[in-house]
Each structure stands twice: as structure tokens, then as C-alpha cells.
């Protein structure tokens, strides 16, 4: 017993002596220092990253935890995170209140259409500003940047009025038109992104294609677009998400005067007003008991669940596209 301890002690002593000798040579000292610095910075990095990830995921987890709580447990203070009774009742009620499948269909139609049209118009304009310079194109690009800076409220009121005169309000075609003509949600930013991206593609590619007899459109279609995959994915995802989450434009131009085109986001804002009506309509009223709808906590629970329902398709989509999206950003090289 004592022998082994003594042995170990000797080993340790040896080790320390070796270490001290090592430290005398500058290269070994450097290597050791680097290793320690690396270790510490790695630990710091992981702590930071995990902490920030937690901050991002925290509301999501909280929302999920609340959503699965059974309505009868609303006032139960002992339940904080894990629901005492696992129930999908909240989801049922929220789906009814949101008019889920119809709104989902509307949202999908609007978002997909707007995304496609935005992609076409902004990529064309961006390419023109990047490569097909003509007299005055610099001025036009300046105007395109100017559209980014002006807030929507400045133009929305006269625009609404002139659109009402043209009898275009209340139809999704208004949004499609705006997207197709490069004036959709934050189109200016997309034009800018595309321009920066196309500027980064080497001119030699274009010249080579030209020598082989391609006209500018063929160059754009056959050479630039396939190379611009990263930028296209980034812009498409952003356009889709921004249209999905848009409340301002969609209410103003479509849903305020035409309730048939309620999207998920616009429904979600008005979910509370329709809650009681929805409950009676669906015949769930009896199941819940009357007093529960008067409980503000119950309402906020439903709101929270409807929030999850609104975001769920987007999150699923993001989960699938995420890898391409991240790679797209890294390759897109959008530099100012």
C-alpha cells in the first residue's frame, strides 16, 4: 500500500521535473501555452454557445410545455414545465379558432406565389444592375436602395386608396402584382443581395459563353442562375418566411376587406375575438364548461398554442431546408 503511494508520488515528482525541464525550451513552452489557451477558449466557446442556444430555444420549449397542458390544469400552480395530464385539447380548440386548414391553404398559396414572383423579378433586376449596365442604371440602382430605406407606412395609405379605386383590394392578386413588379416585402434587399452575388461570379464565364454564341439572356439562364443557387435559396426562404409572417401588408391589402383570404398570421392576431364563437360552433363548449373560457389564463394558453400551430409548418420546412440554407449563405458571398 505504502509502496504504491510512494511509487505514484515518485512518478508525479518525475513528471513535474520533466515538465520544468520542458519549459526551459521555448518551442515546447509555446506549444504548451497554445494548448492551454485552446482548451480555455474552447470551454468558453461551448459555454457561450450552449447558453445562447438555450436562450433561443427557451421560449419554444416553454410554448410547447404550455401547449400540452390540459385545460383543467390551467390554475394548478404545481405544474410548471411538464404537463400533469398530457392532452391535445388545446390544439383542437386552437385549430378550430384558427380555422386551421383553410388558413393554412391560403397562407401556402400566398407565400408560394409571392416567393416565386419575388424571385423572378428581383433576380432579373439584380442581374441587370450587376452586369447589364446601361446609361442610368446606376441611378436606378440608387432608387432601388432608396426603396429599402423608406418605411411602408409612408406609402401604404395612398397606395391603399389608389388600389381601392382600381378595385384590387381584397384579392390576393394585389400581393402577387406587387411581388411580381419587384415591390413586395423588402424586395429592395433581395435585389441588393442578388446584385452583390452576381457581381461575385467571374466575368470570364460570361465571356466564354458569349464566344460560344450565347446571347445575354442565355448567359443569364444557363450560366448565372445555376451558379446562383446559394443566393436563390437564401432569398426564397427569406421571402417565404417574411410573407408567412407578414401582418401589415396582408391585412391592409387583402384580409381586411376579404375574410375569405385570412392567413394564419392574420387569424392568429384575431384568435381571441373568435374564440367563444369557435367553441360554441364546434360543440366543444359543453366539454369545457362555461367558466373556463372566462379564465384569462385559458385564453392565453390557447393563444400560445395557436402561435405554435402557426409556426409549425415553417419550422418543419426550415428543418428540411436548413442545411441547404446554411450552405447557401456560406457560398452566397453577399458582401457590401
Amino acid at each position, binding site marked *: 500500500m505504502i509502496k504504491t503511494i510512494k511509487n505514484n508520488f515518485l512518478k508525479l515528482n518525475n513528471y513535474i521535473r520533466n515538465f520544468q525541464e520542458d519549459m526551459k525550451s521555448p518551442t515546447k513552452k509555446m506549444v504548451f501555452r497554445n494548448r492551454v489557451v485552446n482548451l480555455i477558449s474552447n470551454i468558453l466557446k461551448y459555454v457561450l454557445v450552449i447558453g445562447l*442556444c438555450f436562450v433561443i430555444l427557451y421560449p419554444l420549449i416553454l410554448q410547447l410545455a404550455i401547449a400540452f397542458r390540459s385545460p383543467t390544469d390551467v390554475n394548478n400552480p404545481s405544474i410548471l414545465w411538464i404537463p400533469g395530464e398530457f392532452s391535445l385539447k388545446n390544439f383542437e380548440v386552437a385549430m378550430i379558432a384558427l380555422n386551421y386548414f383553410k388558413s393554412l391553404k391560403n397562407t401556402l398559396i400566398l407565400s408560394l406565389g409571392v416567393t416565386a414572383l419575388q424571385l423572378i423579378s428581383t433576380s432579373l433586376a439584380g442581374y441587370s444592375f450587376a452586369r447589364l449596365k446601361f446609361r442610368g442604371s446606376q441611378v436606378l440602382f440608387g432608387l432601388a436602395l432608396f426603396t429599402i430605406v*423608406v418605411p411602408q407606412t409612408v406609402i401604404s395609405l395612398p397606395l391603399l386608396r389608389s388600389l381601392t379605386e382600381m378595385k384590387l383590394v381584397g384579392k390576393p392578386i394585389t400581393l402577387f402584382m406587387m411581388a411580381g413588379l419587384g415591390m413586395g416585402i423588402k424586395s429592395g434587399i433581395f435585389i441588393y443581395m442578388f446584385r452583390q452575388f452576381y457581381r461575385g461570379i467571374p466575368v470570364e464565364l460570361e465571356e466564354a459563353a458569349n464566344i460560344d454564341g450565347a446571347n445575354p439572356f442565355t448567359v443569364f439562364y444557363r450560366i448565372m442562375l445555376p451558379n446562383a443557387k446559394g443566393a436563390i435559396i437564401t432569398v426564397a426562404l427569406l421571402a417565404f418566411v417574411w410573407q408567412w409572417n407578414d*401582418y401589415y401588408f396582408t391585412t391592409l391589402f387583402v384580409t381586411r376587406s376579404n375574410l375569405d383570404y385570412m392567413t394564419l398570421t392574420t387569424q392568429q392576431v384575431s384568435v381571441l375575438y373568435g374564440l367563444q364563437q369557435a367553441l360554441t360552433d364546434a360543440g366543444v363548449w359543453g366539454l369545457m364548461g362555461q367558466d373556463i373560457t372566462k379564465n384569462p389564463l385559458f385564453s392565453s394558453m390557447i393563444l400560445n398554442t395557436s402561435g405554435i400551430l402557426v409556426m409549425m409548418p415553417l419550422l418543419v420546412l426550415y428543418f428540411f431546408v436548413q442545411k441547404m440554407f446554411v450552405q447557401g*449563405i456560406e457560398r452566397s458571398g453577399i458582401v457590401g
Partner: protein
Amino acid sequence: MMKEKKMMSQSMVEQSIIKLNKKKLVLEKKFDVLTDDYIKYSQKEKYRTSVRINKRRGRLKSKIQHVKNDITRLENNEVIQLNVWQKISQIFKRMPYNKQKQIYGVLFVVPWFLGFILFFASPMFTTIWWSLNSMAPKPGGGFTYIYQGLSNYVDLFTKETLSGATVLEVLTSSIIDIVIDLPTIIIFSVFIAVLLNTKFKGHQLVKAIFFIPVVYNMTVINNTLSGTFGQLFGAELDTGFQLSQSFSSFLMQIGIGGGLIEFLMSAVDRIFLIINKSGIQIIMFIAALQSIPDHLYESAKVEGATRYEMFWKVTIPMVSPMILTCLVYTIVDSFGSSDIMHFLTVNSQGTTMATNQPGMYSAISIVYFLINMMIILLGFMLLRKKVFYYD
């Protein structure tokens, strides 16, 4: 595809042959003149002019050849009358590539330009016009206009209030918000971008998590939560931060002063907002970081630079153009969530401003826009000299 292949009538063919022959004669005369000139100048050893003339000669020669070809084709009856599109495409194909590019440039911009005129420029000018008018809704629909000059703007700063606060107060508070948020968001997103750009275990997953705020719409959820039931839900959210409370009490027990704790807690509270606001900025900075060529870092390493030095001397200058872009984006992004928006929905009398006082509405939005422009310009002026362009 239907292609019209009409044979030309005999008389037309003859006429055009005569025309082309005349044209050919004229061209050949010109050609002869040019040839004479060319010989003359080259004998005088004025090579520059002679070369220029020779070029023109070459062009004329090919033109004459075209005409000759046309004549032979006409004589052999091989001619097909082209429809309009074919003619245009033929003209287009004969253009030099540079001109083709310009034409396509205009074509590609046309849809955007149409949209710009229809959905941007004209409403913008209308807003400016409205802001100079006192407007009241007419009973039959539409508005009565009374030109007032700048009195809307004066009223805006002297009379209008929103739940007790004057416009000036609301404006200053929202501007202070922007001014505080701007540097925090930009520094934070540069920092996170640098962090995410290194390869460590699980960096794919971390990146995916960090871009969730881009997808996940916090603003709408915040809007719903700030309604009647918002406070109760907010209370529920707060229970989760018991962790931070216990942490702060722990710090108290150790004996760290209250000021530091307050600062830490406010930073923790704010970090959530800042992360949610800086999704796009992080994306932009990661893209910028990726485009920094590796050889810069390699040469810095050879020169014996530490990582800290490399960050300040290589990374920051290389991403500095992006800082400007992010500055603009952050300010633009804060338009929507600004307090001033509440002015636009409900005014002091409790009626909606958009329908009853469009003049005032326009004045507010233009003032807000101008102030934001000023912040952007200020940022530009401050950063312009620091920005480094690597070309």
C-alpha cells in the same frame, strides 16, 4: 409553332432587285473613294487615319457582300418573307454583344421600374402632397383638400398626443431605442458570426438553432401577447426566469454589489431581444466572413500575429463594408416595431388617423422617415472613413 413562309410575288422581287442594285452601286462608289483615301494616307505615312479608314472599308466590304448575297438569293427565288418577330431577332443578332447587353439590361429592369412607379414613387409623392394639406373625409367618399403649407408639421409637434406622450417624446424614445440597439446588435452579430464561422463539434446544429429567430416570428407573437391577456402570459413567462433570480441572489450572498447585478440582469433580459433582432445580420456577417480569402490569415500567421491581432487587423477590416449594410438593415428593420406606429393607428381623439386625418398621418410618417434617414446618414459619415474595401 406556325411559321409563315410566303413566297414573294414576281414584281416585288424585281423591284427589290433593282433597289438592291442601286444600293450596291452607291456602296461600291463609297468603297472606291475610301480605297483611294486609304492609299493616299498610307503613302503620306499617316498610319493612324489610314488604319481607321481601313476599318471602315472592311465594314463596307461586308455590307456589300451582304447586299450581293441578297441579290443572288432574290434571283434564285430562295427568299422567305419574315414576320415581325423574326425580323426583330435578326436585327438583334446582328448587334454587337455590348449593345445586346444594354437592351437586355433595360428589359430586365422594366418590371421593377414599373412597380417602382406604380407602387412606390406615386404613393410617395401623394404622401408628401397630403402632408401639406388639411384633409377631411367627404360624405360621398374621397377627401376635401385645403392647402396649408407646413402647418401639419407644426401641429404635429405642438398638439398631437398619444396616451399622454407628445410626438416629440415618443420620437426621442424610439430614436434612443434605435441608437442603443444598433451598436449592440452589430457587435453581437459580428461576435456570433465569428464564433459560428469556426468549425467545432456540432457547429451545423448550432448554426441551425441560431437561424431559428429568422424563421420564427417573434413580433406577431409579441403583438398578441401585448394585448389584454398579455400581462398574465408575461407573468407565466417570468416564472421561467426564477433561475436568473436565484443566480442574482447567489451573487448577492457572495457580496457583489447591486449595480453590477442590475446590469447583468438587464443584459440577460435584453439578450433575448437582441438575438431575435440580429438573425439576418448574423447571416450577412457569416457570408462576409466566408468571402475573406484564406491567404490573408496565412500570411498574418507567418508574420507571427496572434488570433486577437488577426481579428482586429484582418477580420474587422474585411467585414467593415458589411457593417454599413447591417446598420442600414437594422434601422429599417426597427421601423415596424417602433412606438411611432401606434400614432398611425389611433390618434388622441380615439379615432383612426388613417381615415380621418390622412394629412397628419402623412406628416408623421414623413417625419419619422426623415429622422431615420438622418440616423443612417450619420452612421455613414461616422463609418465611411473606417470602411475598408478590398478590391
